[in-house]
C-alpha cells in the first residue's frame, strides 16, 4: 500500500450533560447498553445489549437476543472519568473488520457540580477506504446480497442491506 494521503474530516460533537462527570462517564461506558439506539446493530439477531468492558484493551461488542455476540471494536484508552478512546471497527458495509481502526475519543470535563461538558470525536475515517478492499473482493466474487443491493439501487427500488436490522 502506498502512503495514505486522503484525509476525511473528523466528526466532532460537543454537548453539555446535566450530571457529574463520574456519572456521565459511567453512562457512556458501563451503561452503554441502556441508551444505545436499538436500530444500530450488525448482528444477525436483534440487539439485546451493548457491552463495553471497563478496562484498556477491553472488548466492545453487541449481544443479540439469541445470545450471539458480534464484535464492534475495543477500548484503546481507559482513563475514567475524564477520557475514553474506543476503536470503531465497523466498515461501510456494516461488517466488523479486525484490521480496520477508526477512533472515537470522548472527553468528560466537569464544569460544575452537576454539569459535564462532553467532547466527542470520531476520527481516522479515511481508514474506511482501506476496508473497501474487502468490499471489492466481495463484489468480484459476486456476493449476492451486495449485488442485489446495487441492482435495486440502480433501478430505484428500496433495498435493505443484508446486515442492517430494525430499519
Amino acid at each position, binding site marked *: 500500500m502506498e502512503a495514505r494521503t486522503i484525509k476525511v474530516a473528523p466528526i466532532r460533537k460537543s454537548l453539555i450533560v446535566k450530571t457529574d462527570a463520574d456519572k456521565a462517564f459511567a*453512562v457512556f461506558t458501563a451503561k452503554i447498553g441502556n441508551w444505545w*439506539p436499538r436500530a444500530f446493530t450488525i448482528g444477525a439477531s436483534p440487539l439485546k445489549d451493548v457491552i463495553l468492558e471497563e478496562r484498556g484493551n477491553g472488548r466492545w461488542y453487541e449481544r443479540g437476543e439469541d445470545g450471539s455476540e458480534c464484535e464492534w471494536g475495543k477500548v484503546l484508552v481507559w482513563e475514567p472519568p475524564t477520557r475514553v478512546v474506543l476503536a470503531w471497527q465497523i466498515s*461501510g458495509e456494516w461488517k466488523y473488520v479486525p484490521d480496520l481502526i477508526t477512533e472515537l475519543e470522548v472527553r468528560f470535563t466537569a464544569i460544575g457540580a452537576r454539569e459535564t461538558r462532553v467532547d466527542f470525536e470520531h476520527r481516522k*475515517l479515511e481508514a474506511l*477506504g482501506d476496508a*473497501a478492499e474487502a468490499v471489492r473482493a466481495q463484489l468480484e466474487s459476486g456476493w449476492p446480497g451486495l449485488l442485489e443491493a446495487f441492482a435495486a439501487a440502480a433501478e430505484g427500488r428500496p433495498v435493505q442491506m443484508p446486515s*442492517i436490522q430494525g430499519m
Partner: protein
Amino acid sequence: MWSDLPSGKAMADATAALAALADPTRRRVFERLRIGPQPVGAIARGLPVSRPAVSQHLAVLKTAGLVTDRAEGTRRVYQIDPNGLGAIRAWLDQFWDEALLAFKEEAERPATEEEE
C-alpha cells in the same frame, strides 16, 4: 426519533465510493484532484499509466459519485464531488447526533431504585 438510518441507495453509494478508492492507482488519480478541477491531460501527467487508463479510472470514480466532469472547450475537466466520499461520513455524523442525544437523556435521567 430514529429516522436517519441510511437508505439502501445511500449505503450503496457509500460502498461504491469506498470500493472505487481501494485501487491504489485510482486513489492517486483521485488525489490529483484535491488541488482543484483539472483536465484529463494534467491528471495523467506523471502517473505511470496511460492516458486512456486514467480516463477509465476517472469513469469509475464518476460512477461511484466521487468526481464530476464538465466540458470546457474541447477538454473535459474533472473535479471532486464532495457528496461521494462524504456519503458514509454524512451517515455517521447523523448517527452520532442521534446516539449522543440518547446518551444525554440517559445520563440526565434521575436514578431509579433498581440502580441504587
